[in-house]
């Protein structure tokens, strides 16, 4: 049966407006600073909102009332500033009676989920990888009708604050499974995943003197994994002996993808790919972008 695609404007529900009407959403989408201000990550925020809108989730955002969770301050040792931010945010969230929070940022996720309870903020917090996995499991998202990733090679870069910090390894991979792509694992993956270099407030400062940037080290591994370049993979440091073998074959035709689930990983991996002059055939996408694109929601 023939289909016609139309585009429809999305009006993002803001919590203050809902509260004024006496409504309460099922979930609050915590956008995060990168999701709100970083030009590249705004596209992830928009992709995720398209998915929320498409499946008809009853959600809202804080809009201009949202502020930094305090994660970078806490990792940098500024506990005072962290707690000021945290208590301000907790007052806002509690003021609206928020019970459930979803976010596309592992740093916001970790902070609200693990560190707000000690300051009185108790919420059910889910990362968008888990949320997308749930939508897929419920059949609300099928990753059909849009761009096809079938056969394209994708490797997932574990975010430290999703993986080791919170033991979420399978959800992002389950989301990627639905794309029917050629998923390959980096040798340093899951519990042994190598950081992109941005965590612990490194995002906001220059690296200490060394012989390489962390994101270049990681991008080289990702590219070698996508390319099936075993010579590079055999010389990686910090690889455990039960690491995945890496792809057996050279990459298939079509552009490859480094999939991420964190705004800082996004920046670091994209910079790394650019540094290696591979932008023409390797793209860095967030899980939400891949799903929105496969579902044909981009307009």
């Amino acid at each position, binding site marked *: *049966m023939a*289909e016609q*695609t139309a*585009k*429809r*404007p999305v009006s*993002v529900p*803001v919590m203050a407006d809902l509260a004024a009407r006496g409504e309460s959403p099922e979930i609050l989408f915590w956008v995060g*600073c990168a999701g*709100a*201000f970083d030009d590249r990550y*705004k596209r992830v925020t928009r992709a995720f909102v*398209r998915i929320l809108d498409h499946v008809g989730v009853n959600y809202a*955002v804080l809009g*201009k009332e*949202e*502020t*930094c969770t305090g994660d*970078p*301050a806490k*990792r*940098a*040792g*500024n506990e*005072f*500033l962290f*707690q*000021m*931010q945290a*208590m*301000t945010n907790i*007052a806002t969230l509690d003021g609206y009676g928020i019970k459930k929070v979803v976010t596309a940022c592992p740093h916001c996720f*970790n902070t609200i989920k*693990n*560190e707000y309870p000690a*300051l009185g903020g108790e919420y059910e917090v889910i990362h968008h990888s888990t949320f997308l996995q749930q939508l897929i499991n419920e059949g609300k998202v099928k990753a059909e*009708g849009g761009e096809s990733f079938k056969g394209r090679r994708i490797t997932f870069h574990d975010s*430290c*604050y999703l993986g*080791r*910090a919170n*033991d979420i390894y399978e959800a992002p991979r389950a989301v990627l499974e639905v794309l029917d792509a050629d998923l390959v694992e980096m040798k340093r993956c899951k519990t*042994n*995943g190598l950081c992109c270099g941005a965590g*612990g*407030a490194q995002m*906001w400062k220059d690296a*200490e*003197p*060394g012989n*390489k*940037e*962390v994101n270049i080290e*990681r991008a080289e591994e990702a590219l070698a994994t996508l390319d099936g370049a075993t010579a590079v993979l055999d010389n990686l*440091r*910090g690889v*455990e*002996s039960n690491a995945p073998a890496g792809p057996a074959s050279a990459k298939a035709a079509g552009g490859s993808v480094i999939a991420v689930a964190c705004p800082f990983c996004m920046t670091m991996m994209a910079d790394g790919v650019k540094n290696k002059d591979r932008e023409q055939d390797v793209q860095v996408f967030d899980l939400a972008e891949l799903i929105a694109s496969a579902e044909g*929601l981009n*307009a």
Partner: protein
Amino acid sequence: MHFSIQNIIFLLVALAGFGLFAWQASRIRANVLVGRDRDMSGHVNERLWKTLLVAFGQQKMFKRLTPAFLHLIVYVGFIVINIEVIEIMVDGLFGTHRFLQFAGPLYSALTGTNEILGALVVLAVVAFWWRRNANVVKRFTGPEMRAWPKMDANIILYVEVVLMAALFLMNTADLKAYQLQGLDLPGAYPVSQFLTGLLPDSVPTLHVLERVGWWAHIVGILLFLNYLPSSKHFHIIMAFPNVYFSRLLPQGQFSNVESITHEVKAMMDPSYAVPAPATNPDGSMLAPTPFGAKDVDDLAWTNLLSAYSCTECGRCTSVCPANITGKLLSPRKIIMDTRDRVEEKYNAPLIFSPALYGADAKHDPQEQLDKENHTLLRGYVTPEELWACTTCNACVEACPVNINPLESIIEMRRFLVLEESAAPNALNAMFSNIENNGAPWAFSPSDRFNWADDLFVAEKKELVVGS
């Protein structure tokens, strides 16, 4: 039973050995307890289960298979051969000879297993020595692996060979003496039976050699026991309490600083009553504790316990993204520095030579001369190391005995930022952005919702035929 002067001597030697160790242990306990209080009670079942898996079961060792198998041999050898040490103790005290022989076939199984494990231990130790000294494993190198840590690692291997040699000398001499007298030695000796040709054919000499082996084995064990507190080999004991007391929280969850919580609450709500500060039992005020950690006493006691549990294996450093890319940070060094510093400031072990540890050669000599700065922070660990950390938890995940270097790094960062305002400039800029704009970047809060402008979603509509 032949009770003799030997038994009295043995009793005295054993008392001296265990007494000295008890004294050393009490000094180490005191060192650990200089750390800040942290309530690690409760969750007993969960903690025991974790200890069973990670400490007894060596779970995390199996991420790297070759060293895991070699280590398993030495570990199982240590445990099983120590059953024989019980026999040695009883024989030594009461003048019995191989008193466990009443177990019959079980005794044969025990002695047989011991011999096979003993031989495997020697092979594993040779492999360990080669891995360590032939530059096979990169993680055994690094600036913190100075003269003493390297020597210590080899001493452990040599002692293990000597202990096994003593065991085989004892068994072989005993076996041959029995054979020459036409008797059957109780037990099974699958290795020693091939070694009898190496020993002389005189029964009295064999009796002496058997005694030499017996004494060398037990005295060696007692000496080794008292060497442990000066060595990374202390992990054979400390790994168990360290794993038991390791964190159960998600690795991403950093500790909350409660004193700051009170201040922030009072700031946001003037009616909030800040609890009275803790006092000494006599009612006088306690000395104020700084935010974060400048020296070892500012760390939690669990961090100090961890410092004594470190095997210096370098798995943490080998997976550290900062270290891999050539930065100064090495999580192993932070832990080794912590142990060196607590031993320097408080009770030192029997073998303690800071010059060999490199405490005064590690960093800028100017900083070393400055007594004010001779603390864990700056005297041992430089801010440059601390600021290189990405808080990725790779070191925490890698540690086979559940040491958490990240906790100490964050505590020292807290001291730098909250007590000295000594964060790198770029981070100070990030802090002021958060304070002023509510975001770590210099964007206007009024632009925070601009991402939602002109947002469309594609919608599929099925075409009705004919329309």
